[in-house]
């Protein structure tokens, strides 16, 4: 009988996620909550980068769109649950509009367009003070009140975020497993062959990018009630790069990679606190070293170890070459 190891591991981790914060200080719970939020953002970017093979440097901007939409609406008295879908749809539409021209041409145009878009969003947030509060940002956003379950306490907000993250992960699991998601994978593995099998590569890539952007919006919508203060500086290019590196460090194109990557990026500053300002230097240096030796990310290390110790089916020597033919 095949033991569903993977399911067991996921359930175990989920149990850990529920039990670990019990009785902990608020700070640790805060760190865990931001880990979940960044995992969601990284999950979305993983769809764009890992499955569709396009670089997006605007994930922080989509977080900003989600965060500011929910902030403005909850400040105006709407419920968070009403504001959330609006923020998500907004991100999805902006993603479509942004991706449409960029994905018309082959190459890394989306990277440049999103890079420029991130700058533009930052300028908008800073300059349009009547709407966004400029550099002073927005503050005092209420946390969502779900009737019986109030999220005002740090721990209950953590569980709320955990619930949202689990739903988001299940939705992503569904997307990746659907015929659609298979098309993403086909596209990543071999664009020419995918197209010859009838996959509309451009539309699939565009959708992947738009859905990934909506995940960014979801993460942003959770940032607003967590921090209860948002300002343009939290959504700059550096943060987009941060999310991108999360995806890469965890392992682009693997389902659980983003969670690992987000954990590394959120926890490493705590571990490397003694290095003070040198943290980012060490981290980016380590990323380059990792890309040289294990380009598939931390999850790739696990895969390599497993392959080494597990008996393998013999493969004909010319199979990999055959798979690479267009």
């Amino acid at each position, binding site marked *: 009988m095949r033991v569903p190891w993977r399911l067991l591991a996921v359930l175990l981790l989920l149990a850990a996620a529920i039990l670990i914060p019990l009785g902990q200080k608020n700070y640790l719970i805060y760190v865990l909550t931001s880990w979940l939020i960044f995992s969601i953002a990284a999950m979305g970017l993983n769809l764009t980068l890992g499955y569709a093979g396009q670089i997006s440097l605007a994930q922080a901007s989509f977080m900003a769109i989600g965060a500011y939409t929910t902030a403005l609406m909850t400040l105006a008295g709407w419920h968070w649950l009403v504001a959330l879908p609006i923020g998500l749809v907004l991100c999805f539409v902006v993603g479509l509009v942004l991706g449409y021209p960029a994905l018309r041409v082959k190459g890394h145009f989306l990277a440049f367009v999103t*890079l420029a878009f991130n700058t533009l969003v930052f300028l908008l947030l800073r300059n349009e003070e009547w709407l966004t509060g400029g550099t002073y940002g927005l503050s005092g956003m209420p946390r969502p009140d779900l009737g019986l379950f109030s999220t005002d306490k740090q721990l209950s907000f953590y569980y709320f975020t955990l619930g949202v993250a689990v739903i988001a992960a299940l939705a992503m699991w569904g997307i990746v497993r659907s015929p659609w998601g298979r098309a993403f994978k086909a596209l990543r593995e071999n664009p020419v062959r995918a197209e010859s099998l009838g996959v509309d590569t451009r539309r699939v890539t565009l959708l992947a990018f738009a859905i990934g952007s909506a995940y960014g919006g979801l993460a942003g919508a959770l940032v607003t009630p967590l921090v209860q203060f948002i300002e343009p500086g939290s959504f700059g290019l*550096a943060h987009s790069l941060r999310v*991108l*590196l999360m995806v890469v460090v965890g392992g682009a194109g693997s389902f659980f990679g983003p969670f690992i990557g987000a954990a590394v990026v959120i926890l490493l500053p705590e571990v490397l606190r003694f290095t003070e300002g040198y943290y980012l230097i060490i981290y*980016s240096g380590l990323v380059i070293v990792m890309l040289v030796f294990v380009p598939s990310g931390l999850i790739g290390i696990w895969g390599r170890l497993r392959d080494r110790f597990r008996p393998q089916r013999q493969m004909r020597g010319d199979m990999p070459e055959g798979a690479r033919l267009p």
Partner: protein
Amino acid sequence: MSQFLQVLLSGLATGAVYALVAIGFTLVWQAAQTVNFAQGEFVMLPAFFVLVGMNWLGLSFWISLLFGLAVSVLLLGLVFKKLVVEPILPHGGITLIIATMALGILLKESAKEFYGAEAQPFPALFPGDPINILGAAVSLRDLMNLAISLGVVMLLTLFLNRTRTGRCMQATAQNPGVAEILGVDVKRMVLYTFLINAALAALASFLITPVYLAKFSNGETLGLIAFIAAIVGGFNQIRGALVGGLLIGVLDNLTATYVTAQYRAALPLILLIAIILLRPQGIMGTSEGRTV
């Protein structure tokens, strides 16, 4: 009218420096399929090398410039190629792009931690005194920046078109496989490209830092503008990058003067989207049949 001329000339001067960066970017892209997202930091850093030479090693300014150039070519050319590009390129273009992004962070943070987070004054190569041309007050510095940049671009073009090495480099960029068969030392040519890129970035750094001051975050805008200049001009042409750089420099200045200063940074984005929609191969570029 005189104000317009003034804005135009200083725009051309900045644009010519952008063009240097964009040309280096284009050369590396062609020769090694490397999209260098650390290009902005490659322009930020040489100025700091010069400051190190002056303030830490006690060299005179002109010697420090040479020192900065040498260190840049060594680190940003040779070491970059050997330690980053060569081992990662086989893993695929996207992996390499991400590695250059990480490298950008590394360089930026290093400049901040090891030299200082404050903007550092950088001695001017030329006096900034205004000169009167047809009623427009233009600084000598702008004129010299324009002249030097255009001169270097011209020399580079001559080198690439007229010398044996230059032609070998072009052959490598066009088709490495065939170039190798014809006896071109492809690896060496690619290395030359990286060295030239580093030298161009260093030159741009020396010309533009007196205006912007040496700051660790200079690379962000410079890099973005260089990418956009390269794309707008046409990715497969040196003269495309030149036109793109000049165009952005001029438009940037015109917007800041006549339309809005708050949103001047948004202009390159709008230009980029317009170009991608209307003419994805760039203004000067020739189509490569770039549909999947």
